[in-house]
């Protein structure tokens, strides 16, 4: 199966007039009309509460949420829908685990040294409770194995770095962690939208991803947890929808994922997320990955022709759709702004919420071009042409 971006582009309203070159997909993907229509349908046809109201609108919401949870289960190849928790995004999902995991003072959490703030700060916050955070070099399984001392209680790793598109060997990483008898959480924010993910095959304990990076609405995300792994978590954000029963003295919490979904949910987003998942399923994530790699090779080859450029991360063959680069002596924000103003090209500049890596390596920032299923070779060519002009202006 191959991706036909020219056909797909017709589904994405911002791309229809051909004036936008959108290369900021690692931050936020565009949404197809089907997702927009699904969100609109919620507000126009059944804008009601889920799991509470017995009227027909409420029942319709319950049905749609069930369909969305089933779609998410299918998307991640989870065993049961009970293993799928709806969250606001990856950050929310990781925080949910961080603050619900039964840590004790003296416990240690291990991450890589190239983590998004969302997979760094929650663990640093736990120092208030005596939990220590340690970092090992990104992708270094030997260092990871050596770091798994008895004090370590959880490993949390990014699967694909949002900084440079490099991916860890997720399967081997899970194996190393499990060999030490520890659970592992994978941050799949940049992986799930672009590659086929099979949580059963990976045998991962927890996995987090965002809806808005995979064609879904903003404010949607998923936390996968093996049933026993979820059972270990103690809900910290509680309220309506999380309990079976409550008295003035206490409450009986639900067994399913709903105990982590406090309050009324983002039903419109959840419904839209289902349609995003179905869209990706129709296109095929492995086809998307192959398409992105082809474009990334073209992009990287073009970048290498420009003077004084540094490309961060591995070779094109070993990365997904994310390419980070910088020019010596040129401010990355100037590049980003001029690409936008001069050619309507949207890229990201700065530290991409991985400040810790930039500070550790003494790098000011990078320009990040991140591709997705609707990007084309012509867009990459246009990007390289515009970039050469911008470089000429700024050099």
């Amino acid at each position: 199966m191959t991706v036909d971006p020219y056909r797909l582009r017709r589904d994405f309203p911002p791309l229809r007039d051909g004036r936008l070159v959108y290369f900021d997909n690692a931050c936020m993907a565009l949404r197809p009309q089907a997702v927009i229509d699904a969100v609109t349908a919620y507000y126009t046809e059944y804008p009601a509460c889920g799991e509470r109201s017995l009227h027909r609108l409420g029942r319709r919401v319950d049905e749609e949420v069930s369909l969305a949870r089933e779609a998410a289960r299918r998307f991640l190849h989870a065993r049961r829908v009970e293993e799928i928790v709806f969250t606001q995004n990856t950050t929310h999902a990781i925080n949910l685990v961080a603050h619900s995991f039964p840590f004790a003072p003296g416990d240690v959490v291990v991450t890589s040294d190239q983590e998004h703030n969302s997979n760094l700060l929650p663990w640093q916050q736990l120092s208030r409770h005596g939990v220590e955070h340690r970092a090992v070099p990104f992708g270094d399984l030997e260092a990871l194995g050596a770091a798994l001392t008895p004090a370590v209680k959880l490993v949390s790793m990014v699967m694909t770095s949002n900084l440079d598109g490099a991916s860890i060997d997720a399967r081997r990483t899970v194996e190393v962690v499990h060999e030490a008898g520890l659970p592992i959480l994978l941050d799949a924010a940049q992986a799930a939208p672009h590659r086929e993910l099979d949580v059963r095959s990976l045998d991962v304990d927890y996995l987090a991803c965002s809806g808005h990076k995979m064609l879904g609405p903003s404010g949607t995300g998923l936390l996968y947890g093996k049933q026993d792994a979820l059972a270990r978590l103690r809900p910290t954000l509680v309220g309506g929808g999380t309990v079976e029963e409550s008295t003035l003295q206490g409450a009986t919490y639900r067994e399913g994922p709903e105990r982590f979904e406090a309050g009324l949910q983002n039903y419109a987003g959840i419904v839209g997320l289902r349609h995003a998942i179905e869209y990706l399923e129709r296109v095929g994530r492995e086809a998307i990955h192959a398409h992105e790699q082809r474009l990334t090779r073209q992009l990287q080859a073009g970048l290498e022709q420009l003077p004084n450029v540094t490309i961060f991360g591995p070779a094109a063959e070993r990365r997904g759709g994310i390419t980070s680069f910088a020019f010596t002596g040129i401010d990355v924000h100037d590049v980003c702004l001029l690409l936008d103003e001069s050619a309507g090209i949207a890229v990201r500049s700065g530290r991409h919420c991985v400040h810790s890596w930039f500070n550790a390596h003494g790098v000011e920032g990078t320009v990040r071009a991140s591709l997705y299923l609707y990007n084309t070779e012509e867009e990459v060519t246009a990007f390289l042409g515009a970039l050469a002009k911008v470089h000429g202006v700024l050099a």
Partner: protein
Amino acid sequence: MLCFLGLLVLTILALFSARYQPLAREAFDCVFRRVTLRKCTTGLDKRLKARVTGRLVAVHPGAARFLHRHLETLAWLFVLLVVGSTANLGYGFYNYYRYGSCNGSTGTGFCVLDPSGTHSRDSGLVTAHRGETVRPGDGGNPALGPAGARLTIIEFGSYTCPSTRASEPVVREIVRRHADEVRLVFRHFPLDGLDTLRAGVAIGCEDSSSETPRRAAAPAAAPDDHAGATRAAIAADCAGAQGRFWEYHQRLATAPDAIVTCGGLIELARGLGVDEAAFARCLVDSTMLEHVRRDFEDGVKAGIDRTPTFFIDGSPMVAPSPEELGEAVDRALGGHRP
């Protein structure tokens, strides 16, 4: 400096739309940081620079390169221009308040605050006096009030000047109020006078039967509105030669329109008990012209370029309001109004 410019523009935009308020706050933060010698970290300056130069990148990379590199310098220049023009605007407001014209005491250009020019107290004359000013005396002119008065007010005026004409009842009232203490001397500063008097040209009443049109007699370089001012001054002196200066002066000053034609001036003298034939002859008497010239030149030496200018206790006041004039007289008399 880009942020400073941004602050100016965005603050104005933010007054009309909340959309621009965050940007205005960013600009303020940026400017505040710069003023406190810290680096601007908002990135607003970069965004503004990109917005300005971005469009040029595709069509004229060379120009884009130049603009991107030197935009800060250009912004400095622009800010200096803004500061300069703001200061100039303030000066214009000051001039309008002080002289009734944005252009000050000697400017004659268009004033946006007073397009019709009706409020201008500007004579339009440039006397080009150089050197130290000389405090003027009474020039032997007719005086109103006791010879031994404590205070002598010397007024330089022109009968074609609306402000001079408007001040006449005010001055007369002050003299009446301080009848024992104030003496008024009126000296001529005809606003068409510079060229007329210096050239020694005929004033146009040689054939007193002709009605010289008011504007036709204007000297080439003199302000048209004041054509005939010298003729009116001579007429006042001619009335004075027959002991009727102040009566004639009052008539000239209070006539609904400035009277400057020979026929009009002769007509105005009727009923004052003057010898009309002698009055008409006097109008072409070069002695009278010499007297007016002397007044005018004393005025120039005193630094005058607009009327009315009052010297009260030696201090000049240009076209003061009635209140200002009254207060100045009270101050000079060292006491309160009776």
